[in-house]
């Protein structure tokens, strides 16, 4: 057997799940299993209790309410990919999902699982950071809202308490006039990105940049929103020179290194990806203005 022994639990409701989390020691929540199961097969993760939330139907939903996209934590990436609401109102998320693993892993993998696994280059985490999402953590004590900026406390470590369950996430939808882009570089299609960049650009009537948002993954343990770069873009003309200057700044952000990829290479990719994302987002914003 690949995983170490555990006791299996399959609750049917959020209430039942948080009861278990409050009472069981060394418990892990199993959602789509596309990250936790490999870790258990390698025995990096050896929970004594496995709480499988695949039968908690109330945690799987996609809703658009008051300009906000609300997703249950157990919503599978495939269901997000095929959601008409998301296709129509958040094409940015739709585009990002195409880079998440492969069809076979998106069929099982969930948005909540991806966020909780907190891989530094995870696409869904990047989009949540770009949109300034809020995570909803349920426990016996109630529901606690966590801003995405406060979610990562370290490398692959969330600020969820041991008795808390990520129940859902709320993503403020981009404005109708904003152009979007999601670009990433990976050695092979479907691999974790070395660097990913998403962007949202809005334009004034005179064609200048009204708003700009950028989220960069792969430089640090969590996606970065380079506030100075975003601010400097506002009021500028959306030209290649403007975006080259912003991209050059992105290429100067301190980057982590690992056994495979140097910090210098990540910085190079940050520059290239930022340029491409801004250029595409602005071009889409222009198309919307003319439409």
């Amino acid at each position, binding site marked *: 057997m690949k995983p170490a022994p*555990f*006791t299996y639990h399959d609750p049917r409701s959020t209430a039942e799940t948080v009861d278990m989390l409050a009472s069981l020691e060394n418990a892990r929540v199993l959602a789509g*299993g596309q990250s936790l*199961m490999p870790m258990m097969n390698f025995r990096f993760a050896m929970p004594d209790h*496995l709480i499988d939330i695949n039968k908690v139907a109330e945690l799987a939903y996609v809703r658009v309410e008051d300009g906000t996209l609300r997703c249950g934590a157990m919503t599978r990436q*495939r269901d997000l990919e095929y959601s008409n609401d998301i296709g129509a109102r958040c094409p940015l998320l739709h585009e990002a999902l195409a880079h998440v693993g492969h069809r*076979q*892993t998106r069929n099982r993998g969930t948005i909540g699982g991806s966020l909780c696994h907190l891989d530094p280059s995870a696409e869904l985490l990047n989009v949540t950071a770009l949109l300034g999402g809020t995570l909803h953590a349920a426990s016996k004590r109630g529901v606690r809202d966590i801003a995405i900026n406060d979610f990562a406390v370290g490398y692959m470590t969330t600020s969820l308490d041991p008795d808390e369950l990520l129940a859902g996430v709320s993503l403020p939808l981009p404005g109708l006039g904003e152009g979007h882009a999601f670009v990433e570089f990976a050695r092979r299609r479907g691999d974790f990105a070395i660097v990913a960049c998403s962007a949202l650009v809005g334009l004034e009537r005179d064609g200048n940049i009204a708003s700009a948002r950028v989220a960069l993954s792969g430089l640090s343990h969590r996606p970065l929103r380079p506030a100075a770069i975003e601010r400097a873009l506002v009021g500028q003309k959306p030209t290649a020179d403007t975006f080259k200057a912003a991209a050059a700044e992105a290429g100067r952000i301190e980057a982590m290194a690992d056994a495979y990829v140097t910090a210098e290479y990540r910085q190079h990719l940050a520059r290239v990806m930022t340029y491409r994302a801004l250029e595409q987002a602005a071009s889409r914003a222009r198309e919307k203005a003319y439409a």
Partner: protein
Amino acid sequence: MPDTREITLTVNGKEYRREVETRLTLADFLRHELGLTGTHVGCEHGVCGACTVLVEGRSARSCLMLAVQCDGLGVSTIEGLVEGGALSPLQQAMQDCHGLQCGFCTPGVLMTLTEFLREHTHPTEAEVREVLTGNLCRCTGYQGMVDAALLAAKRMRGEAA
């Protein structure tokens, strides 16, 4: 005391009831408990795609699912593709296009493409290549598989012999 459960599931249309240890993966359940060794196990951490099966019609890595999670569900494996003793159009096309060499990755490839061709009756080459990114082949290469998927789609539309 190992943690066990009794599960009932349908594999390739046949119902099975077994008592399983809850940490048993679906891949090992199919191979060791049911003797369905057509599902191959490569990396056992969700990267290679050799163990791909269909769970309720959707492709999934059987090394990343527990058998206990399939209680009450329907699973399809490579053994279920044969139609009335004959190769399925996809299997026949794989043979005709030399889409396999050692055959280790083939069951996963066929299950991935089976799901894909159900939803894409007119696939493009780019779409086939995209869906095959989830299956690693280390000997034949992908050209024959891509040709086979396109030929199978054509034959299933009645446009090619």
